[in-house]
Structures are given as structure tokens and as C-alpha cells.
């Protein structure tokens, strides 16, 4: 019997799991995917917003700025890449300058520190690659960039380290109300729990509707992105937004924590929750809009494009509350942007709700807040490199050329407590295959290492989601 079962191991589920692991609770983290952070969390702008966008008084307004300020300590404890590079919202005319004023006011009310409205001259002095056509900009010093999946993996690893039980590839098919709480039935197993936290992202409606008559609907809102090569990662120094519109915070141009350049997203409401495809219309649109922000856009340096889905509800705010007709069932739904930025604050908010319901939950004495990242071999000093190779020869072998990733790092990614099982899971942990050749050289090697370390056949290794098989069989098997 679990005390708390969290459904969904995205950044929100993993944040809550890690927060709950500070208490003497038996926690289950249940995920339908074969990896954590594998849906909404893995495809977004990777931005930690300052917190001026949301209307004061909303949950978004309350939790974004608060969450933002928690990232320094969190990322230090968890060894996650995070940079407070600052963000700029560009205004191109007088109307948009007024919008900046409103954003500034909102920011102050939401408790965002260090906000400034800057003149065109000042902005261009700070970043000469920004378009000459601007009138001014809102500068938020606390805006940041992060590795969203590294953050989520780190949270999950640290939660598991502190006793959380993680169950991947478990799709919840039904939830039964019981005297003791809830019985969660997945395609693999059954989990009894006193309380449920529903962080199922795009499918939070489905999970809610299994237990509550207060029906919910999640609307998938797609955003498309271009990722550019590291050679142009320093095109801009800040996260560059344009003035927000009805459909969100607009197309941004930003460096990533790994040194690439990211452009996107657009916003398109869909019905299909699996429509993670890009379209030429969407990609053309983001390029067209992004060209307004910067003087040049070196699109010939694109290395990939991708799409993400935000989990929207009609309420236009986060839904973080106990279901009225289901005691001990807490919905954490509609966590669209700024969900990643708010994640740490959301988890505290959820713990407070749980404390209210459960009355007494005790802090653990031996909680370990630290999680060591996989060493990034290429960033070590000469002596450290040699020491590591001496200790473990696998660090002397580069597998991914573009990102200079060693076999040691890949093996380590596989054998962690929330270890990689797929080629993309390796990629998200150590960046093998994330570079300009997109795995052209290293994918055969990564598959070989995965198969060897997991003790399975190469043909069993998948690219990403279940069913994404890569090899169809040994050669000569098809020849008649």
C-alpha cells in the first residue's frame, strides 16, 4: 500500500516525487512511457520564465516567479545545466511599448525582481544581433535557460535515491475508489494508494474522469521548433521574446544551455494528443516571425525540427486542487507554460494540499538533496580526464563525435537508478546523437552498447517510445 501515487513522470510529477521523498511516505511514481519526461517535458522552449506574463492572482502568477527563484539551489543540488541569461521582450511600436508597461506592472505584482524597461539603444548595446526595428524591450534579469529533460531525470533520480518507487511503461487503464483510497490499475499491475496526484499532462483529463464526475478536458496546443547548430548558438545572448498575443508568449529566439540556438514555438490548438509532427506551415511561420527579432537568422545551420504539445484547459490557469467529489485525489492539470518554470513552486503547493488532507506527514531525517550528474568528460581538466580514463577505460573512447561523448558516459546513463533503455533516452542523458550529425555516426554504437549493457539483442533496442524499433532483423533473413 502506497501513501501517495503520482500518475505521470513529467517535470511536474518528478518535482512532486522529489519533494515527497523528503517525507516519511511510501510513494509510487507511475508513468506510461518508457522514460521520464518523455512527452511535454521533452519538447518545449527550455526557458525558466521570470514570471511577468501571468495575470496577478492566478496560480500561474503566484507560482512562476516563486518557482523561478528556486532554480539556482535546485540545479546546484541536482547538478543540472541552468543559466540565468536574462530575457528580453521586444516591442516594435508604441502599442507594444504599452504592452511592455503592462507586463512590467504585472511582473511587479507577481513579485518578479529586477525588471527593467530599456531603450532601443540600450538593448542593441547589450545584444547587437537584435533587430534595429525595435522601439525598446522589457528586460528580466531572472529569466533563464535550462535542460528540461536533464532537470526531470535528475529530479527522478534523486527521488528514487530517496525511496520513491518508479514504475515506467505502466499505462493507467482504470482507477477504483476504495475504502483505503484508490486502486490504480495499469496495463502491467495494480497499485493501492491512499492518495493520488494526477500529473498526467495531456492525459490528466482521462485520469481525472476515471474518478470524478467533474469532467475535465485537456486541449493539446502544439508548438513547433527549429534547433540550430552550436556554431550559431551565440547568435543572441538573451532569451528574446516578442510581445505576447492571445496564443501565448510568441516565437522566441534563444540560446540553449548546451550552446545551440532554439527558435519557436507557434501555437496551434489540436484535437489529437499524439500529433507531435511538424508541418511546413508551422515551421515557415516561426521562421518568418523570428526574423523580426534578429538581424540574421542562419537557418542553414538547422540540425533538427520538432514539435511539443502543451496541456491546456478552458480555465486558462493551472488546475491544482483536490477533486471535489474524490477525496485525496489531487489534480495537477493544465500545466502549460510557465509549467516548467513553476514546477518547484507547484510541488510545494501540492505538498501543502496533501498536508491539509493527510494532517500529519513527517519530514525524513536522512533525505539526501544531492544528485551527482554523469561526468561530462570533455569538460574535465587534463588531469581529471587522465584520472578518469585510468580508473575506467571506457572514458577513453569517444562514441559521439559531434558532442564528444565517451562510452563511459553512455554506460553510466544506462546503469543509473532511472537508467536509459532507448537510444533517445541515452541522448537525453548524455547528448550522444544530439549534435549536427544527429546520430549518423554514433547510433550503431549506442545501440550496440545498450544491447550489451542490458543483455538484449540489438534488434530489441528502440529509438524512443515503445514500438520504435530500429533494426528489422539480421541481414540475409529476408532473402528468398
Amino acid at each position, binding site marked *: 500500500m502506497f501513501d501517495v501515487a503520482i500518475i505521470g513522470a513529467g517535470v511536474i510529477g518528478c518535482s512532486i516525487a522529489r519533494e515527497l521523498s523528503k517525507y516519511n511516505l511510501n510513494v509510487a511514481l507511475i508513468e506510461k512511457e518508457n522514460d521520464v519526461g518523455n512527452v511535454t517535458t521533452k519538447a518545449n522552449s527550455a526557458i525558466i520564465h521570470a514570471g511577468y506574463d501571468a495575470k496577478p492572482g492566478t496560480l500561474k502568477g503566484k507560482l512562476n516567479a516563486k518557482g523561478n527563484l528556486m532554480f539556482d539551489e535546485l540545479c546546484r543540488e541536482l547538478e543540472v545545466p541552468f543559466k540565468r541569461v536574462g530575457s528580453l521582450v521586444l516591442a516594435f511600436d508604441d502599442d507594444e511599448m504599452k504592452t511592455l508597461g503592462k507586463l512590467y506592472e504585472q511582473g511587479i505584482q507577481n513579485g518578479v525582481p529586477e525588471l527593467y524597461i530599456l531603450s532601443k539603444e540600450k538593448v542593441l548595446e547589450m545584444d547587437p544581433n537584435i533587430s534595429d526595428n525595435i522601439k525598446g524591450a522589457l528586460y528580466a534579469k531572472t529569466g533563464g535557460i535550462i535542460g528540461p529533460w536533464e532537470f526531470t531525470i535528475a529530479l527522478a533520480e534523486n527521488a528514487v535515491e530517496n525511496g520513491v518507487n518508479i514504475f515506467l511503461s505502466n499505462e493507467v487503464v482504470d482507477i477504483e475508489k476504495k475504502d483505503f483510497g484508490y486502486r490504480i490499475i495499469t496495463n502491467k499491475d495494480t497499485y493501492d494508494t491512499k492518495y493520488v496526484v494526477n500529473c498526467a499532462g495531456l492525459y490528466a483529463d482521462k485520469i481525472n474522469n476515471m474518478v470524478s464526475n467533474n469532467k475535465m478536458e485537456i486541449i493539446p496546443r502544439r508548438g513547433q521548433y527549429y534547433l540550430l547548430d552550436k556554431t550559431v548558438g551565440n547568435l543572441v545572448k538573451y532569451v528574446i521574446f516578442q510581445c505576447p498575443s492571445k496564443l501565448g508568449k510568441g516565437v522566441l529566439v534563444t540560446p540553449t544551455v548546451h550552446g545551440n540556438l532554439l527558435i519557436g514555438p507557434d501555437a496551434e490548438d489540436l484535437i489529437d494528443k499524439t500529433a507531435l509532427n511538424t508541418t511546413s506551415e508551422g515551421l515557415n511561420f516561426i521562421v518568418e516571425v523570428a526574423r523580426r527579432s534578429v538581424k540574421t537568422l542562419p537557418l542553414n545551420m538547422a540540425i533538427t525540427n520538432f514539435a511539443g504539445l502543451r496541456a491546456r484547459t478552458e480555465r486558462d490557469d493551472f488546475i491544482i486542487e483536490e477533486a471535489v467529489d474524490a477525496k485525496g485525489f489531487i489534480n495537477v492539470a493544465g500545466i502549460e507554460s510557465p509549467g516548467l518554470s513553476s514546477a518547484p513552486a507547484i510541488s510545494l503547493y501540492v505538498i501543502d494540499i496533501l498536508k491539509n488532507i493527510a494532517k500529519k506527514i513527517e519530514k525524513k531525517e536522512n533525505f539526501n538533496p544531492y544528485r551527482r550528474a554523469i561526468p561530462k568528460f570533455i569538460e574535465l581538466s587534463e588531469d581529471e580526464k587522465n584520472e578518469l580514463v585510468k580508473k575506467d577505460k571506457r572514458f577513453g573512447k569517444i562514441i559521439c563525435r559531434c558532442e564528444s561523448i565517451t562510452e563511459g558516459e553512455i554506460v553510466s546513463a544506462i546503469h543509473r537508478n532511472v537508467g536509459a533503455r532507448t537510444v533517445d533516452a541515452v541522448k537525453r542523458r548524455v547528448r550522444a546523437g544530439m549534435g549536427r550529425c544527429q546520430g549518423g555516426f554514433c547510433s550503431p554504437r549506442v545501440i550496440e552498447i545498450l544491447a550489451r549493457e542490458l543483455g538484449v539483442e540489438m534488434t530489441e533496442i528502440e529509438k524512443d*517510445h515503445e514500438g520504435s524499433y530500429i533494426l528489422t532483423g539480421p541481414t540475409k533473413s529476408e532473402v528468398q
Partner: protein
Amino acid sequence: MKYDLVVVGGGPAGLAAAIEARKNGVERIVLIERDRELGGILQQCIHNGFGLHVFGEQLTGPEYAERFINELNNLKIEYLTNTMVLEINDKKEVYILNQELGFRRIEAKAIILSMGCRERTRGAIGIPGFRPAGIFTAGTAQRFINIEGYMVGKKVVILGSGDIGLIMARRLTLEGAKVLAVVELMPYSTGLTRNIVQCLHDYNIPLFFEHTVIDIKGKNRVEGVTIAKVDNNRVPIRGTEVFYECDTLLLSVGLIPENELSRNAGIEIDARTSGPFVNESMETSIEGIFACGNVVHVHDLVDFVTQEAQRAGRGAARYIKGEAIDNGVVIRTVNGNGIRYIVPQKLRLENLNDEINLFMRVDNIYNNCRLDVKLDGKIIKSFKKRKVTPGEMETVKLKKSDLSTYNDCSLSIEVVKE
């Protein structure tokens, strides 16, 4: 560690360069290869057709490589496999990593860069759609099939008519897969004509010019691709879409010289070739650092890679022995009409032996034309061609005596329709 010459990359270019340098008297040479064996991409090219120019016979890739590897061994040239070069710099220091030595610095008198090239990816050409498994570059698929021994799919569409794509169309067919179509954006093939005939025509595989892939279906594994005809601006034409049900998409959409090490060392790169600017000795903008093979420009025949690498090996030997002449007449090569690039970009006349081969690519198909070679605007040589195409590299051989009466000047080559 100290060496006279460090050769980065043990493919056909590196092998020939190291051998030639040794034959020209260079003592301490080390060749560094990141893969587990020498030979580079040749090792996965198990088809034949290699060596017609160099050996006058048709060899497979591994056979062609073996001849050079044997010679390397006979000449007792040192090499390191499973060794990655992480950095080189203008002081001619080479930083390497392997499991035995760890992270090491090598001081060299000269360096030859022969890192080859890599394939353009789906991301580089921006195909929209889902991102399932089953999308491979042709070379990656070739490695899976020919080296690892695994099939990558059963029903295949190939985008791009580059040579590796064409070769893989045949290879997949022979392995029992069904290749539904080869789709080429341009109105002409970017591969060799002989490969079109031997790999597509002989197996009744259709080739569609002026077509491209505009959508990929399949959330986990490729379930199909949509192809469409493009207009003169390479924009897909509405209403021409055709859906192909398949489990695999192979990309053969071009190769890019692998110059990350060169760039980081500060070597000047020619935007047209994506490789370093080089002179007649294949020396880059940094004195004593030479380059050859696909790292300089993408070749379609390994034989030409070998010839170019030998030139680099001789150049490096001359440099190490202090025999290179860096003053005197300098001729710069300039693209005339119809020429996309010429390698080398610079000729120092004093360093030429009897003759020099200029490698170039044209920008379109021209039938019955001439290649006019002009020195400061005056035609000095003219070569008749029945057909030139972007898919086949052209070479022009010039004698030192053709050039020797001129002072510093430019040499242009242009395509003239007859």
C-alpha cells in the same frame, strides 16, 4: 609525444598521405584513426568499382583500403586506432584521447587533416512530419547492413540520388528489401551515371527527378512518406502529392566536409567547398597544416582522393624538410561561369612539379561544351567535353610550362557551350 607528421584520419586520404610522406623521406609519422580499424568509410563499401584510375582494376572498398594498409605496414608507419583527435591548434599541437594513453598532447612539425565528411541529415534539409524510427542516412544504413549485419527496413523510399543512396538501393534490394522509389529534388542526379544504371535501372527501381519528401507519417516507426513534385524554385507543387507506404526512409542528400577540428584551429574555410582553402601542396591557411580528401571537398571517386592525398603527403614532406618555397609567383583559381568550385584555390608556381591537376565541379548539366582555362582573361587551354554534370567531378591537367611565363595572377575556368 613528438612526431614530424601527424595524419588525422585513417581513411583513403590519410593512408595515401602518410605513405607518400614516408616515401618522400619523412621519418616519424603517426596516423590517428578514431574507428577500430583503418580504411575509413571504404570498409563499409563492399561494392566494387574502386581503383580504376589508380590500379586499373575494379576493387571493393575493403580491397582498395587493404592495399594501402599493407603498404603502410610495410613502410612501418605508426598508427593509432580507437583514438580520437579532440583538438588541434596553430602551434601544430594535436590533442588525442584513447583508452591506453588517455588524453595526450602530440607536438608535430606538420599535420595532415583527412577527416573525411559526414552526411546531411533530415534536420539539415528540414523535412517536416513525425520523428519516428526508420529514418536513416544512407551511410548509417550501409554501416548497419554491411558491418553490423542488421537490416534497417523492408519497404524503403530513398530521398536523394547521391552515390551512397544509389548503392544502398541495390544493396537493400539484394538483401530482400523492396525499394519503392528514389526521389531527387534536382532535375539531375547528384550521383555517378554508372551508379544510376547499375543500381537503379538494373533493378527496375524508379527514379523521380524534381520531387521531394514533404511529410513523414508514423509515430513510432515510419509508416509512410508523402512525396511531391517541385517547381523551378524547388517548392512542392500542390496536388502532386503521392503517399508511399513504407517502413524506412533513407536520406542521401549530400555530404559535408568534417571541419570542426579545422575551424577550431582557425583554418580558413571556403564557403563553396565547406573545406579549407588549400594551395598546390594541399596546405591550408595555417602553415604546415595540410588537408586532403573529402575534408577538403567531396569527391565521387576514391581514386581522386588518393591522388590528392599523395599531393598533400609530398607537400608535407617538402615542408618538413624546409624545401617549400613560399615566395615567387602565386596564382589564384577563380570560378568562371558554370563552375561551382576549383581546388586548389591557390597555386605557388615555384612548388609545382611538372604538372598540376585541378579538381572542380560544375553547377549544372552541360552537353557538348568546353572547359576554358584562362590566365588573367586569356585562354591558355581548352578541354572539349561531351557532357559535364554536377554529379561527376571534373579534372583539368595543366603543365607548369603553361603557367610559368606569368606573374601573380588569377586563373579562371569556365564552361562554354559549343
